[in-house]
Structures are given as C-alpha cells and as structure tokens.
C-alpha cells in the first residue's frame, strides 16, 4: 500500500511538472533580442497580443485574401524557407501568373525600415494592401476581403478578441498581420549561439567569418546583416530600375535593397529577380561577374578593379560561415508555421 501511494505521489509530481512546462509555453509577445538595435516598427499603437498574433497568423495563411481563394501570404512566404519562396526565382500568384521579383524572407520585420526590394513602402502596416490587390498576386479588392471575413463568425470573434469590438476593418486586418510578422524574430542561429558562448565555429567557419567581415560586411553589416541601403550590386541590367522608380532619382536606378543574410542558406534563389540559385553562383558573381553599369556601388569598383576578389577556397569558407546564419528553431517553430 505504501508503495502504491508512493507511485501515486510520483505520478502527481510528474503531472504538476507537465503543467508547469505548459505554463512556460504561454505567449510572451514581442521581445527584442538584447543585442539587436531598437525596432523601427512603432508598437505604441499596435502592441502584440496573443489574440492579435493569432488573428494575424490566421489571416497570413488564409487563401480567402485572394480573389479565388487559392493564394495566401503563406503561399509565397513559407516557414521552412524563412518565409521566402524556396526554389522560385519569381512567384506564381493567382491563375499561375508570374510576379516580377523574388519573394523575400519575412523575418525580423520589426527592424525593417522599408519594404519591397525597392523600399516603396515605409511602414509595415501599409504593406499588406499590396499583395492582396496586386493583379499578379492575390488580385482581390479590400472590400471583398472584408466582406468575406465579416461573414465568418470565427473571424468576427477573433477581431473582437484582438481589438475589443467586433468591427472587422481593413486597418485592423493590416495591424493583425503586422503583429504576426513582427513576431517572426530569428536570432538563434549557430552564429548567435557562438556570440552568446553556447557554440563555437569550426576552423573553416571562422576563416569564413574573417573573410566575410573583410569583404561583405560593409553592406551586410551588423547583427541584422544589412545596412538597409539600396545599391546596384553589379547585376546585368533589366528593365526593372528598382529604387529609382520610387525616388525618381537616376542615381538610384537599378538599386535594390541590401537584404539581410540571416537564414540565407534557406532562401534560395537569390537577388531581387531570383537569378542565382546557389550561394556559389552569388559569390561567383561578386568575384567575377560584376558589370560596370552607371550606378554600380563604389565598393564594387575599388582600385580600378570590378567586384570582390575571392579565391575558390575563400568562397567555400564564406559559404560555410553563411550556413551558420541558419536558425532551425525559427524555421521549424510551430508557433509560426501553417
């Protein structure tokens, strides 16, 4: 009998432990990593709440945001490729129509000052209207989307939970989507673990890091691996003038956003038009493919030499370093996945 009660006691202890662990997994809201800069997103009017995040996530993965119900945000921004469109140089939207630029990774959005490859949108809350209305992407009108959401009792309930009343409005939809996107923080790659002393680089990764800091980090700078600038990195020109279309300044023609390199191994293909499918091709471009076009960034034509000199060994080591920027806990986080 004593034995039994002991077992029973153990059982309850274990149960309580389980419960405790469950409690630990409660929603923590947006937390800026201590070694990241101050977020650019203004949370004052839109603090991340569990209900807002949950609603944003539901919207992000809901095909009803598109005209025929087939395309959601998550169609082209897939969690396992850091919310980019793995393997697609440009994405196919509604009716199989092709977009014109590569779907970028949706990560660390709270630190992005500009959105799109040309930076035409300067506030995350003003972003989501675009893919919904774009004829090549989701091709739906905002009033139609709102009508569809209003007709769904579950959505009405979730809007109320997130914003206090049952009003289903476009503004609230954008705010909820922003809450979801702001939560997509990636800061647990091997690189981060090395920074906080819980992992260490191999010799080759370390060599790659040194090279990266010498040859790449002037643009892909800081803890976010971008200076958030717009540059012409020497690609052969297409009709897409990028940033120049926004600023109407010819000095910005063919300039595109310097992307973060976090999770770069997972976000193939590369460049604003997805023209390169491997990191080897990217580094080959910088080493020997840079074109001397009028707005080429000056860092890519130093001392009368085009591009960044790199040996094959150096390229290999840089790629090994770039692989350490992959954050498996981020891309596999069930909280974010569809």
């Amino acid at each position, binding site marked *: 009998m004593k034995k039994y009660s002991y077992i029973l006691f153990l059982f309850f202890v274990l149960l309580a432990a389980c419960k405790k662990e469950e409690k630990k997994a409660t929603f923590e809201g947006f937390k800026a990593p201590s070694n990241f800069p101050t977020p650019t997103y203004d949370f004052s009017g839109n603090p991340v709440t569990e209900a807002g995040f949950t609603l944003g996530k539901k919207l992000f993965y809901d095909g009803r945001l598109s005209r025929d119900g087939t395309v959601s945000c998550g169609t082209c921004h897939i969690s396992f490729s850091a919310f980019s469109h793995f393997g697609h140089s440009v994405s196919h939207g509604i009716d199989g129509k092709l977009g014109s630029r590569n779907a970028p990774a949706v990560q660390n959005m709270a630190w992005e000052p500009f959105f799109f490859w040309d930076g035409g949108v300067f506030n995350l809350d003003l972003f989501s209207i675009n893919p919904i209305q774009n004829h090549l992407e989701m091709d739906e009108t905002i009033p139609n989307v709102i009508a569809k959401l209003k007709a769904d009792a579950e959505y009405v309930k979730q809007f109320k939970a997130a914003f206090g009343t049952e009003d289903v409005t476009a503004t609230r939809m954008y*705010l909820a989507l922003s809450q979801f996107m702001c939560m997509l923080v990636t800061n647990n790659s091997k690189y981060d673990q090395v920074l906080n002393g819980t992992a260490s680089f191999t010799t080759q990764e370390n060599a790659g890091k040194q090279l990266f800091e010498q040859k790449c980090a002037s643009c892909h700078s800081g803890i976010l691996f971008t200076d958030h600038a717009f540059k012409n990195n020497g690609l052969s020109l297409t009709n897409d003038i990028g940033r120049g279309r926004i600023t109407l300044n010819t000095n910005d023609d063919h300039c595109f956003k310097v992307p973060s390199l976090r999770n770069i191994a997972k976000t193939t293909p590369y460049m604003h038009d997805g023209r390169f499918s491997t990191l080897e091709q990217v580094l080959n471009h910088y080493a020997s493919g840079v074109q001397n076009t009028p707005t080429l960034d000056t860092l890519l034509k130093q001392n009368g030499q085009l591009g960044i000199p790199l040996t094959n060994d150096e390229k290999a080591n840089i790629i090994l370093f770039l692989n350490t920027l992959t954050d498996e806990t981020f891309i596999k986080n069930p909280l974010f996945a569809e």
Partner: protein
Amino acid sequence: MNRFALLTVFIVAILLTACKKEATTTEIDPNRKGSIMLYFDNRAGAQDLVLNSSSYQTALGQDLTVSKFNYYISNIKLVNKDGSTYTYPKDDSYFLIQESDASSQSIKLSNVPEGDYSDIVFTLGVDSIKSVSKIAERTGVLDPSAGAADMYWGWNSGYIFLKMEGSSSFAPLDSTTMQRPVEYHIGLFGLNGATNNLKTITIPFNGVYASVRQAKTNAPEAHFFVDVLKVVNGSSNIDFSVEPSVLSDKNSVNLANNYREMFSLDHVHNE
C-alpha cells in the same frame, strides 16, 4: 396729441438706430463661432465641366473628354482682414473633391471664429506629415482601403493628389481597349528626396469679406471655379500625343505647376 405722435416717432427712431448700432458695434466676437461654406465648381475653361460627354479644347488645340476629375484639399486656413489667420482643425481638414460626386464639391467649415475673412489658403494634396502617419490615423477620405482607394499608391506609399482621366483623339490608340486614353495621376510628397508636388493655394476674395457670424442663419459662401484644362494648359502645355500618361514620374512637376493655377474666385456672398 400732436406732441404724442411726434414723441412716438422719435422714440421709434431712437430704438431703430439703437438696434442698428448694436448690430454693428458688437458684431464680431471671435469667441462666438459660425460657419462658412466652400463650393468647388469644376469647369473646363468658361464652360461647366460635364464628364464623359462634352469635348473641350486645350491650349494646343487638342480635344479632351474628361471621365474623372478628383483632387484633395487639405490644411485649410482663413485669413482675417485684421491680418490674423485661422487654421481649421488639421484632422478635420482633409477633403476629396470629385466631379462625379456633387456632395463632395461643397465643404462646410463649422466652429469658425467670427470674423471678416479676406482670403483662403489650402494645400492641394495630402501633406507629408499625414502621408507618413499611422494606418489608424488614415480615416474617411484618407483610408487607403476605402475613401482613398482610388487615390492611393500602395506600392509607393502615398496619396494621389489629383487624378484626371479622359480621352483625346490626339492620344495614342490603346490596342486592347481601342480607346485613346489620357491619364494624369499626380502625387509625391518629397519622401527620400523624391519629387514634391504639394502645392499651397491662396485665393483672395477680391476685396469682399466672408463674414462669419454665429447669429447668421445662412453661412457666408465662397464659390470657386476650378478649371480642369489648367491641368494640361499653363507653363507646360501637355501634348496628348507625347504625354498621354503621367503618373509617379518626374514630369509630374510640370502638371503640378500647371494645376496650381486652376483655382479662381467666382464670388463670395454673405446673405
């Protein structure tokens, strides 16, 4: 009897002048608030603008049929004859005038301090501060998903200040629609060094004062003419065969410099 009649006339006369005097001396009290009505009468040259039917002639002698004419008025100020300026509350000061919607063409400014106003000043477009404001602060005619849906660039976050669309036999043929469309969507508020097409418009009331008084049953009215042809006529006469479409484009400054001249006073009346 005679004396009584005289006295009566005298008293009545005194009372009458007293009444008049009271009306003139204590006339203006800025603590009292009244209203003023603004009317925007869209025209094409000397003719009233009629959408889709009438054909008008531009300065270059090209025909133009107008199918859409919309513009934003914001940041309204009234200049008092004493030299001071009254600024209408900024958040209530955004109006979208649309030729297709008669109700949008008159604006009632309420709660305006009593005064005799000699000029009106406003922005044509949506000022830069509002253009970068939070989504929740963009309501009514500024809501990109509703009131501003037709007057907003999502891809280049910003309002279209003025939109004029139509057709001309001088414009190139669109082979899919078999039409010869012209379209001018003018915006840009100068973000990141880009073009700034915001224009401040001043319309003097030509010596007539709009007298805002609380006691008035009929608010004073200021009627303006807005000449759609001035979008394409002016310092840069637009040739439809060369520039049938100007959107988010450097050349938009030419049209903005043209249309800043499109407003004129019709008349002000107080009764």
